[in-house]
């Protein structure tokens, strides 16, 4: 049953060194504040999972929190490369990063399988590419050979959402990404929210994740910034563009991290 706790307490209780951790968000509701708290608490040796690692994963990787990254597209959307990710892969700075690479369709199937408590996901994918399917299975009914991907089952899944009620039921809407799958596939789940309300009002397109599949809810207004929370604030496109400059050199990155993450009081 979800407890409503501070972000610092939630990260401290749920995320351990060496854990497999997913902070998901498909261009929307990306849990930046939770990522910063992981950096502040100096977690190490994390096996990170995310379909679209972008700026907050660049920060986690540059801060030395990660030993591996399972992903399908690692870039700064609409801007270009992730310089910290590239530095880790190309030069091993601040430490080498093992990559486990998929396609989006493969990652999506792995999330759905994890949420379904299945050992693997199945899809018609990876055909003809140098990116091999992790395995193949033969359809027992038609004989068709299909790609198989191991289910994502992280130790900790973290997502951001618009709001929760006082019991910790979570409501989110707009682009849904793999938020629900991440919570359901993970052994421990944390949801950061913009606000807690007395009652979750029906909203077009909204889904509810019930409190009994969530371990902790932390109230973090603007916790997705520079990503956005539909209905609360817009994507800070200017920051995504600035990140290209900030992250390009190790020195400017480290300085930014000190000023904007380490020196900040936890939410």
């Amino acid at each position: 049953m979800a407890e409503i706790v501070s972000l610092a307490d939630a990260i401290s209780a749920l995320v351990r060194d060496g854990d497999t951790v997913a902070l998901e968000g498909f261009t929307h509701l990306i849990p930046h504040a939770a990522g910063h708290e992981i950096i502040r608490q100096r977690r190490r040796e994390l096996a990170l999972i995310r379909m679209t690692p972008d700026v907050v994963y660049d920060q986690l990787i540059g801060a030395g929190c990660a030993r591996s990254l399972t992903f399908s597209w690692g870039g700064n959307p609409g801007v270009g490369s992730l310089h910290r990710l590239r530095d880790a892969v190309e030069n091993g700075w601040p430490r080498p990063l093992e990559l486990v690479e998929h396609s989006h369709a493969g990652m999506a199937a792995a999330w759905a399988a994890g949420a379904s408590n299945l050992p693997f996901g199945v899809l018609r994918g990876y055909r003809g590419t140098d990116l091999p399917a992790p395995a193949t299975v033969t359809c027992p009914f038609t004989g068709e050979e299909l790609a198989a991907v191991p289910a994502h089952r992280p130790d900790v899944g973290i997502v951001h959402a618009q709001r929760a009620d006082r019991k910790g039921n979570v409501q989110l809407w707009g682009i849904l990404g793999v938020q629900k799958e991440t919570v359901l596939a993970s052994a421990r789940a944390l949801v950061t929210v913009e606000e807690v309300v007395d009652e979750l009002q029906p909203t077009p397109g909204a889904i509810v994740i019930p409190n009994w599949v969530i371990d902790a809810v932390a109230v973090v207004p603007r916790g997705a910034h520079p990503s956005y929370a539909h209905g609360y604030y817009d994507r800070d496109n200017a920051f995504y563009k600035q990140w290209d400059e900030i992250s390009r050199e190790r020195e400017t990155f480290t300085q930014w991290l000190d000023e904007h993450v380490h020196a900040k009081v936890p939410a």
Partner: protein
Amino acid sequence: MNDELMAIEAARRLSNDTVCFVGIGLPSTAANLARATHAPDCVLIYESGTIGAKPDELPLSIGDGELAETADAVVSVPEMFAYWLQGGRIDVGFLGAAQIDRHGNLNSTVIGPYDSPTVRLPGGGGAPEIATNVRDVFVMLKQTPRAFVERLDFCTSVGDRVRVVVTDLGVLEPRDGELTLTYVHPGVRVDDVRAATGWELRVAEDVDETQAPTNDELRALRALRTKGDA
């Protein structure tokens, strides 16, 4: 201007009943231009889960809020890839890449060896399954010898369904399994295109010139380009 030519030429190839899977950048520009001009009912699907998005301005990312606000439906990412893409419900998929070969195979993964790359690119994202699950793949790519290569460093997606490659110099289409120059843009010489291609380019006997952008097309395009399209 070259970007505009590419967007306009790609937009002309979309029709009012096309359902297209759109990535950010030039494909999004092209698809929205089609919607703003001759194909107002063209259905735009962004892989973030927005079906029938109708943005007024070009989004910077595939997940901009305006896409969800204007969409006919918003679905989860697993649903998008399983029910809609794998389900075979999408006509046209746009792809870009860092490298292309003469068969339309694309690389958006690495330059150099995979395990010790010179350049680590963002990766395939949706491309591997877009390339095999849509009916027609449209590629948009600037034509240079570094991008149009004899051998890919990595094959991210296969070229079987590539129907057209729109570049800043002209248009290539597969003829007998090999990409062949079928159009040059106004003022571009066939030799310019040959020089910008890393393999010995096959040129159609009836190679033609693309129609210059019309004032209406340019006006509609420039009206869209106020925000995104970095």
